[in-house]
């Protein structure tokens, strides 16, 4: 394998890992930054996304309660593309419900309470999914157009799916960025992040833009659930095993900053991929080590936003 080919492969492994974390971390970071709400239950949205994707796209022989009541195999079997389209919409609705019933009552509570309540909620989802769908893991059967290598002239072969993951993440990052920067709703959210009270005094109803941004973040997490599920497999523990690195990335990058979160996710992706090459067992640990180093040097993250964490 030539140096070019292996480095391009390395690049795409790093970028695809970064993409999954980025899609989860974006929603987390914006909600944390603008609403001062730290939401571990965001991991539940990732978890829901992965399972909704499975049910929409395939027929899966689930265990647990579904099996006991004779409902397995369960699923709509609409194919992988349908899952990619439908899941973010379903989780978007789930995000709206979560904002109304979980986040809103907790906005005025201290961060510590929010962290503990949402930790409990995620635990409920994890254990609930274990009971309903069984404790085994599942896999995404990707169709031909999304699997196998792709040949790039003069470079070599790269996993086709990893390229799609990276492209998808870039597209969605661009959409969010454009929404944030160029729409009135985005402006309202940015203003609300700077000073919620002042924005409301100016006659802007800040509740609805915040709800929208929360639900968009949720939809991204749902999409990440499919992407992550297809790369690392699906099980009920995936919510926790993703939300913790995602939180680490958000805090490392600087809470509430899209730029910071992107940089954090890229750093984590590259460190993860690099350590995987030489020392696979320490790959996950390397993200934590990175965060410890970064936060020791910059206790408020790489791009501090000032208000949170002070």
């Amino acid at each position, binding site marked *: 394998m030539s140096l070019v080919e292996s480095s391009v492969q390395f690049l795409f492994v790093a970028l695809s890992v970064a993409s999954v974390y980025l899609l989860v971390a974006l929603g987390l970071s914006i909600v944390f930054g603008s609403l001062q709400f730290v939401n571990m239950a965001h991991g539940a949205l990732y978890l829901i996304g992965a399972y909704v994707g499975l049910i929409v796209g395939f027929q899966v022989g689930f265990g647990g309660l579904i099996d006991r009541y004779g409902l397995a195999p369960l699923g709509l079997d609409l194919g992988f593309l349908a899952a990619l389209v439908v899941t973010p919409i379903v989780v978007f609705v789930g995000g709206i419900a979560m904002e109304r019933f979980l986040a809103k009552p907790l906005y005025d509570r201290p961060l510590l*309470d929010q*962290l503990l309540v949402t930790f409990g909620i995620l*635990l409920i989802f994890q254990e609930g999914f274990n009971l309903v769908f069984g404790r085994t893991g599942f896999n995404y059967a990707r169709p031909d157009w999304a699997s196998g290598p792709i040949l790039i002239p003069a470079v070599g072969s790269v996993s086709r799916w990893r390229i799609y993951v990276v492209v998808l993440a870039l597209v969605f990052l661009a959409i969010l960025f454009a929404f944030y920067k160029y729409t009135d709703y985005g402006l309202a959210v940015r203003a609300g992040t700077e000073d919620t009270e002042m924005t409301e005094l100016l006659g802007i109803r800040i509740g609805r833009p915040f709800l929208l941004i929360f639900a968009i973040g949720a939809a991204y997490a749902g999409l990440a659930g499919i992407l992550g599920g297809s790369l690392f497999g699906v099980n009920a523990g995936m919510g926790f095993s993703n939300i913790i690195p995602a939180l680490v990335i958000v805090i490392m990058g600087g809470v509430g900053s899209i730029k910071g979160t992107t940089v954090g996710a890229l750093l984590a992706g590259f460190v993860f991929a690099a350590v995987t090459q030489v020392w696979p067992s*320490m790959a996950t640990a390397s993200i934590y*080590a990175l965060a410890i180093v970064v*936060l020791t040097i910059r206790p408020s993250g790489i791009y501090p936003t000032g208000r949170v964490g002070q």
Partner: protein
Amino acid sequence: MSTETTEGSEETTDDEPASSALETWDRIKHTERFVLVSAVVFVAVFPWVFTSLPLIPNDLLAYDQLARLVLIWGIFALGFNHLLGQTGLLSFGHAMFFGGSAYATALFANNVVADPFLSVVVGVCFALVLAVVTPFILLRLHTVYFAIVTLAIAQMLYYMAREPFEGITGGINGLGVERSPLFGLVELGADIPGIFGALWGTYMYLFIAAFFVAVVVFITRVRKSPYGLIFKAVRENETRASFVGLDVWRYKFAAFVISGFIAGIAGGLLPMETYFTGVERLHWTLSGDVVMMTVLGGLGTVAGPILGVIVFLYFEGVVNGLDVIGGYWLLTLALAFTAVVWKYPDGLWGMITSVSSRLRSRRGDQ
């Protein structure tokens, strides 16, 4: 008419000794001596109540080892509570003290001397080292940052114990632990003869109970001292505490070290009890468990965390084994935990005390 008045007067005369008894109760229930006595009484009767209370079906009773585990986890939860409940710092990485101490204890017992007491002391020393070093990174950080980075450090240790140091720690297979008689005299696995055996089971229970009572007394001493009040001041308002001229960093550091020290005692006792230690004792889910236990029982009190441990381990060890509902034990606990942090921050113990104070205020109204 006349009967009514006599009834009324009778009531007041009846009430007098009762209310003075209540006053005496109020006076003594916050003294340290009372805490010591009740800890000893609790330790003395708890295993019997927990494992062989009459009239309770056998399925619903716990087993001997669970009683010992309750005391060990009780120590751990008290240590954790000292940080979150007293000082207001949420650590999601307390497994590092627990698991670190467990490994240090196990390695000392296997390679140097298998004496239970000495091994636990070595384990605690290791936990202390961790608790002294880590705050230099951690205490620059606030709330969520602090919680996540404690978790990150603990997870680092977990992954390190799992593979790079597999040769020492046994990796995912864990490590068997030796235990010799205490000071070469008392075999801790032996049954206590006579009625005490029926109450407490083996000498191991007494060994753990001694640590438990010592920890309760120590924690109470700290809580009641002017020094302990400063922890509370830091929890309530850090900025104000520093305006008064207190060095907040120093007190947070002290709280962290005390908390790690106590968690280390629990971590050291566990391999002595189970003859085993494994990497899962460093994993963050264990930190999550202790958060759940402490918050569920009631933060900031001595009885609360212990109640939380009893409920948690009862569900894990007993309810888990029941037919039909057994599989739902963790879901039930998660629901209860979430409800408690959301709506009832004082926890189960807070519910009990508020019911009793409501009863008393109703008495007072009449």
